[in-house]
């Protein structure tokens, strides 16, 4: 199997800790404070929903957890290690090995086939020489993931040839191919019809139950949020536990 090269030793608990994180964006003339001291935890194999109105800062929180952005103040810890202030190269690496992300708009690369999209985190991970060493392994893994999500027959289709539900399943397979510890999903069902959305949600729950994958699901939909073990409500940049 593929060596995931964990950057952080998984002995510590909780898996993810967000400590009094603040984040403000420049908006027009002044600063718009989106997060005003958020504290939040995800235990190993936990499934947490973050719920809130549009603009409550839930996507920003997700980006901070996914190391796509850095907090103005506060800390983000992964398995007991502070990760928000790591050098860029290590943050890039962590994003690749420990965190999987799923977006509302799928965010697949249009030039690549479904299989190649799923392989892309591994393409990013390995240098050219390493890639050829791991290629067969990676391919097998990506194929089995796609088959698991019922896309065994669509390996070589381009994203534009897939339906929304299929694209989101490819995106989830992509998030999982690098064997992350944490899956961050940003409104994964937001662009889908009810049936497809339900399918995606079912797949996430299944991953959490059988594989023990920790999931943070951001949504504005109460009914979807209820599928999680725990719901965290963001109101005006602060957490209200439910």
């Amino acid at each position, binding site marked *: 199997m593929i060596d995931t090269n964990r950057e952080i030793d998984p002995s510590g608990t909780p898996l993810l800790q967000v400590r009094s994180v603040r984040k403000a964006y420049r908006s027009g003339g002044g600063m718009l404070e989106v997060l005003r001291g958020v504290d939040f935890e995800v235990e190993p194999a936990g499934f947490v929903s973050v719920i809130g109105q549009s603009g409550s800062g839930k996507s920003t929180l997700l980006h901070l957890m996914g190391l796509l952005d850095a907090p103005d103040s506060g800390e983000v810890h992964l398995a007991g290690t502070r990760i928000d202030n790591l050098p860029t190269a290590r943050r890039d690496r962590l*994003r690749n090995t420990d965190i999987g992300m799923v977006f509302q708009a799928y965010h697949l690369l249009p030039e690549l086939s479904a299989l190649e999209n799923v392989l892309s985190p591994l393409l990013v991970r390995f240098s050219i020489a390493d890639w050829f060493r791991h290629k067969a392994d990676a391919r097998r893994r990506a194929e089995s993931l796609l088959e698991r999500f019922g896309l065994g027959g669509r390996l070589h289709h381009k994203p534009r040839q897939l339906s929304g539900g299929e694209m989101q399943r490819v995106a989830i397979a992509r998030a999982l191919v690098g064997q992350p510890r944490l899956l961050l999903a940003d409104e994964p069902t937001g662009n889908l019809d009810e049936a497809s959305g339900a399918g995606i949600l079912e797949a996430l729950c299944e991953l959490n139950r059988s594989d023990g994958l920790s999931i943070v699901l951001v949504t504005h939909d109460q009914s979807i949020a209820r599928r999680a073990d725990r719901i965290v409500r963001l109101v005006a940049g602060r957490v209200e536990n439910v």
Partner: protein
Amino acid sequence: MYTLLLCWRYLRTRWIALASVISVTLGVATMIVVNAVMAGFAHEMQSRIHGILSDLVFESHSLSGFQDPAWHMEEIRRAGGDDIEGMTPTAAVPAMLNFQVRGQWVTRQIMLIGIDEKTHAQVSDFGRYLQHPDNRRQLSFDLRDGGYDTIDSQTDGQQVATRPALEGAGWPHRRMRVERERAWRQRQAELQAGEQAGGVDPRGSGPVRPVDHQVDAVLAATSPAVTADGDANTAPPGELPPTAPVDPFRAAKPEEGRSFDPAKEQFTGIVPGIGLASFRDSEGIDRFLVLPGDDVKITFPTAATPPKAVTDTYTVVDFYESKMSEYDSNFVFVPIEQLEKARGMIDPQTGLASVNSIQIKLRPGADLEEVRDRLRESFPADMYAVSSWKDKQGPLLSAVDMEMAVLNILLFMIVAVAGFGILAIFFMIVVEKTRDIGILKSLGASSSGVAGIFLGYGLFLGLVGAGAGLALGLGITWNINRIRVLVEWCTGERVFDPSIYYFFRIPTIVDPWTIAWIIAGAVGIAVAASVLPALRAARLHPVEALRHD
């Protein structure tokens, strides 16, 4: 790995980007063709110049030259050693050439060069440039009995206008002309005799002198010229102009104390440059004012102080055609002994002759500059100058180099402009791919990796553009003469007129180093143009990039 894959995918899905490299292709192709042709022209010119001049020229600073060339040549051989292959003395003096064309005296400024007919062709390509095949083998200042080339011998068998005027040149032309002049002379004498008998002498001239050889000789020297189409040969005698009433050259005598028959004898032979004796008309046909067999007059200064002007009559025996108009319309070659004698360059006490310079040919592979410097050390610099053929033509050669450099800079601008095209297109692609860049970053791609995609893209486009340009450029260069023929056939106009350039095919030289530089430059520009878009891509903030639509 993703860098390569995505770079390749973007290429495969964005052929339009290749449009931006077409200008790179064209720029590279143009540079290759222009460089090859210019190098060809420069090489052709250099070889011409080198063919005219010998490898080294040893000369005195004064116009009256130095005495005893044999001793100097020995000294040069001692200094130069094995590197010297051949030597020949020459004497040069500025002079005036006079000949009559249809009654008009034509005067040309020339450089009269005394050469040794046996050895001169050994030190340079002089022999190759003559019009009679026997003279090309071994120059003789004796008039040949016809057989001059009617087709330029330096054309490599290309289709060019012939020179029918040279058909009868030589002794046949000379005999015919003398005959005609005698007939005209006789007729004039008869007419004048008739007028005197009638008691009316409109010109008030004295009694007509008998037509003797002396007059014939003078007439021969001042004969009307024959044009290329030969119509003067067939013109009625009445159209021929009379000898000028006051002939400044009447004093010229061929050889003292002996009668001279111009139909059987000649004056000292000379070989003028073909540009002095002919011109090329609008159809590219050479029209001759003077032909081998005609007599001309040359006025030059003596070696005395102050110099006196001396005029002598000479017979044209051949033409010199180096294809360098500067020389072809300036040089006139005479036997060196004759020139030394006529200018008084022979010391009456010692009998030693003076020459202006010694032309030296070096053994193939000898170091031109090194031998030149060795000779410079061996002779006092205040009396002698030793220069190589390159030194002699230094300004011209450096002007050509300069021209090439400027042209290259200008052409490289074209490639640079292409670079800005690439820059613009890449910026567009980066904007279009902003979200993909965000996705890649969310997958853990580093900024340098993202930049690598676009740099690799630029490198690939540069390579493709330069490669296509290389193929196109070499294709054009190697087939340039065929293309020229095709273009001429299509347009009906002469693209490359040999009468202007004196070459009969476009010369090209492909220099691998020049091509390497051009390719490297073009690829470099393509990569440089992709640096800015690549940096922009690398600096994109992942969150904002992901939000981009």
